[in-house]
Structure formats: C-alpha cells, structure tokens
C-alpha cells in the first residue's frame, strides 16, 4: 500500500471518529474538524518526529503541534488517539463530565499530546512562536507546527504573532491556515472581508505556500516540502494556505457554515458515516 493510501485511510477513520464523537456528545464542531483532517493526518502520520508513548509537555527532542483553533478538538483528539498517545476507547468520553477530552483542549487533565489550552481564538499561534523560539534557544532542531483558522485570523493577536515571528526570524515554525472560507455567521467574506489572507501573510514578512487542494494528500505533502525548502534558504516562518472545504467528506456538510458548531442527529450521523469507509475500526 502506498503511503498516500495509508494516509487517506487514516483520514477516513479520523473523520468517522469526529462525526461519532460529536454525535455522542450532542455538541462540538464537526465542520472545521473535517476540513482540517487531511493536514493534521499528514502531520501526525507522516511529517512529525514524535514519540506518543513517551510524550512530555516540554516537547524536547520532538516536533510540536499547536491547534490554535481549539474548537477542532475532536480532530486533535482522534489524531492523538490514533497515533497512540492514549487509548482510542477514550474518544467516547469526549465532552462528558470527568473526561480528559474537554470541549476545548486543556492541559489540566494531563491528556498526553496537548501542549497548551486553546479555544479562545487567536492565541495558539503566539504560543507556537514562543515554543519555536524556545527550541532555538535550546539548540533543539525539531520543528513547530501550528494550525490556524481563516475566521480565527480576524483576531488582531494573529497579526501580532505574525509580526513578532517575522521580526525574530522564527524559521523553525511552519503554520497552516485552514482556508475554507466559512465561519459561524456565514462566509468569511460576508462576515468581515476582505480576506486576502495570502497577501497579508506575505506583507508581514512570511513566506507563503498555497495548497490548491488542501484536502488532497499529495498537494499537502508537496506544499510542506516547498515550505521546508524555503526555510532551508531563508530564515523566515512559513504559512501554508490550505484551500479546503468546510465539512469535507460529508456531502450535506460540505461548503456551508451550518455545521460549524452543530452536532448531527443520530440518523444524520448514520447517513454521514455511510459516505466514509471504516478503515481502522471505530472506537
């Protein structure tokens, strides 16, 4: 089996996990989680050097991933569980009282793989920048990755982080924008345009790579490869703009803001699961 096929199979299972977790919890954010599934799969199952069984929060001698858009927690939890950070069966506790899988990622439950709480938007990129700086100070040559939402990029702090990372030449950081064009109240253009996100990142001194299909494994892999090549010759952070589809993989969830923060009913979940093959076994 090719590595691409292996990644596609994992992404299928993660999408099933997301839908089932959110349905069982009767709450959560399926739309963005499904649109970012492919890049997070590539990171955890192809790019990142990490040791799920021996994780510690310092991220020492390992790559680190920060989910700035913390509402995509079901995606993060599934990727972590499927990587072996904790038992897959624990996904069933998502958003339930006493669970380590809080509505938004938390550190006080000691869930392996979570470096920092996120959910109040616009903050995770700054933490990732700090972690990347820390790695440089420590002479640790591992990378820091961060996923940011396009709606989230309306937060001013994102641009404070952009400016800081550029000024301090944080060149061990590769960030991704889930550029699906949707947020709770509508399309990003309707809510507060203009978007021009790629141009904004360039203006802030970052190198920018665009993945024309941000839900396609080959496109994501080649975009990251290009980001690494740019970083090898120029001391700059890189933003990979992923042109994705909100709700990707479920026909009635695709391309709409309707499913940003809404759980499907059991029968809707069943209809959705019929469109995504079970590849690794449901939790």
């Amino acid at each position: 089996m090719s590595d691409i096929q292996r990644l596609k199979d994992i992404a299928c299972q993660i999408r099933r996990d997301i839908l089932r977790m959110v349905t069982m919890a009767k709450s959560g954010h399926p739309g963005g989680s499904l649109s970012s599934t492919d890049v997070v799969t590539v990171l955890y199952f192809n790019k990142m050097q990490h040791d799920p069984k021996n994780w510690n929060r310092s991220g020492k001698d390992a790559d680190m991933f920060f989910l700035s858009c913390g509402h995509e927690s079901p995606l993060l939890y599934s990727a972590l569980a499927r990587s072996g950070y904790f038992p897959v069966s624990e996904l069933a506790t998502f958003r339930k009282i006493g669970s380590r899988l809080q509505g938004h990622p938390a550190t006080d439950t000691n869930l392996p793989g979570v470096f920092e709480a996120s959910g109040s938007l616009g903050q995770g990129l700054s933490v990732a920048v700090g972690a990347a700086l820390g790695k440089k100070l420590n002479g640790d040559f591992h990378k820091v990755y961060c996923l940011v939402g396009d709606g989230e990029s309306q937060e001013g702090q994102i641009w404070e982080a952009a400016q800081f990372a550029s000024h301090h030449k944080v060149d061990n950081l590769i960030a991704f924008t889930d550029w699906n064009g949707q947020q709770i109240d509508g399309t990003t253009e309707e809510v507060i345009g203009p978007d021009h996100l790629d141009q904004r990142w360039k203006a802030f001194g970052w190198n920018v790579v665009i993945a024309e299909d941000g839900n396609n494994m080959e496109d994501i892999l080649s975009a990251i490869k290009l980001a690494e090549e740019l970083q090898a010759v120029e001391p700059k952070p890189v933003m990979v703009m992923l042109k994705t589809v909100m709700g990707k993989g479920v026909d009635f969830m695709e391309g709409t803001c309707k499913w940003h923060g809404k759980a499907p009913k059991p029968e809707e979940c069943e209809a959705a699961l019929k469109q995504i093959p079970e590849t690794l076994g449901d939790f």
Partner: protein
Amino acid sequence: MTKYTNTGNKDTRSGFGEGLLAIGRECKDVVALAADLKGSVKMDAFAKEFPERFFQAGIAEANMINVAAGLSLNGKIPFVGTFAAFAAGRVYDQVRMAVAYSETNVKIAASHAGITLGEDGATHQILEDIGLMRMLPGMSVVVPCDFNQTKNATIAAAKWNGPVYLRFGRPSVPNFTGENEVFEIGKAYRLNDGKDVTILACGHLVWEALLAAEELEKEGITADVINVATIKPLDYDTILNSIKKTGCVVTAEEHFIFGGMGEMIAGLLASHFPAPLEFVAIADKFGQSGTPSELMKAYGLDAEHIVAAARRAVSRK
C-alpha cells in the same frame, strides 16, 4: 515600636530590574520580554547583558503573554514586563488561557501599578489588577513593599514553580527592608508587635502603616503591622493569629476596595473570626492626574488615613 530606617527613597521598578539581572546571571533559563517599555520597566540591564535571552515584542502585549507561555514549555522561565494596566487588564484573557489555565511558568512583571503612576492619569492607573489576578486559579499575586523587597521577590518568583503576578510601581518610595533578605512567596511578614489593632498593608503602603503605628503609639494604641507581601496564596495563620490577639483590623492598599487585599481579608474574617475591619483603599471611582504624594493624600491612602481608620476599628471592638 520596632524602628525601621529608610535608607533612601528608591523606585520599586528598579528593584525589579536589579532582581531580574541577578537571577539572569544565576540561571540561564531566565528570559525576558518587553512591549516597548523596556526602559520604563527597567529591563535594560538584562537586555544589554543577555541580548540572546531578551525579546522585544513591540506594542503587542497579547502576543507577548502567549509567546512567554510557549517559551516556558521548553523549560525557560520567562518574565514579561509592562505596565500593570496592560499586564492585567488589557491581556486578561491571554493570562487566563495561556498562563493560569494552561499552568505555564510565566512571571508577569507589572510595573506602574496603582494611582501613584501619577501624571499619566486614570487611563494608566490600574486599581483592579489584584482582584483580576487573584481570581485566577493557580495564580500567585505578590506585592512587595520597597526596592529591596521587589528585588528579592523577583528572585523568589523565578524560583517559584508556577505563574506569578508581581506588582510594583513607578515612584521612589522609602527603602527599609534588608538588602539580602530572603523573600518567601506565601509568607506575611510581621514588622511590629502590638495588642490593640492589626494593620495589614501591601506595597509601599507598608511604610505608611509603620508611620501610622508610630503615631498611634503616641495615643496609647499599639499596632501589629503585617506586610502582606503575598496576596495569594495568603498566609492565613499569621494574619488570623494577629487578629485573634488584637480583635480588629485595618487593611491598606493602593487598589480599589472591590477585589483587593482588604476584601480578601474580609472574606477570611467572615468565615473564621468575625471582627471589625476598616478599609484604606480607593472607593468606587477612577483616579486622575497629579503627583504621587498629592494623589495618596487626595485618595486617602497615606499614614494619616491609616491612623484614622485604626481609631475607627478600635472604637468598634
């Protein structure tokens, strides 16, 4: 009355600057970040000696707090320095999320706190920061009383495992604690023994409390004076033991009554040992421009007001 000598007025922010430099020399994991107030907050010496461990964040405090949180994950001990109005008020959600809730080892150096920031006026005179910070689970709140203690508290904050909000100020105030006194976070320091009233003070109002105790002694009222240098975690035993002895208390702080140290003591008394309490703090109104000493007088924070409050407390026993 125990005698304390003012060895010369000095600003507490410079105490922070000296403490940061000292702990920076001792511990290579100490790093510092500023938001375009490196000079005002006295981080220049550290930045000059350790340029590779100093990060200028520009006028962008929110990002600075979270970058510090990220640095702390790698074992760094970051100090972020800015005015208290920005360190607590402007970035409350960042401190809540990335520092307190995420339990990161970030030290918030909050300078120019309170009304004695002076001429810049109410926009910059934060008087609610103790309240904001003490409400956050896991956050330690430290308010040292003079230059020497601010230096020693800075060193203690670096060695403390967990987030610390370290509050100090702009003006020169009496410097009377020992140069090399070891500062313990979580400890209240009793400076004078008395039997009639307990005066609990923090920050530079500790000196005012000592002046007040001297004045009260002339009237035959003797005061326990306690420096509540750590608001959280509060040294319950030292404070309660004193109030059980004296039977009444005055709290003195450069803060709003709402949310301040005094309200914390009121809560302690209500649940453990009901006793008369008089607040020396600012009522429900913003500050204004003026010199620090003018404002201390106008807003009722000086020794004279502590004396009056002590008389009232004693009369209510």
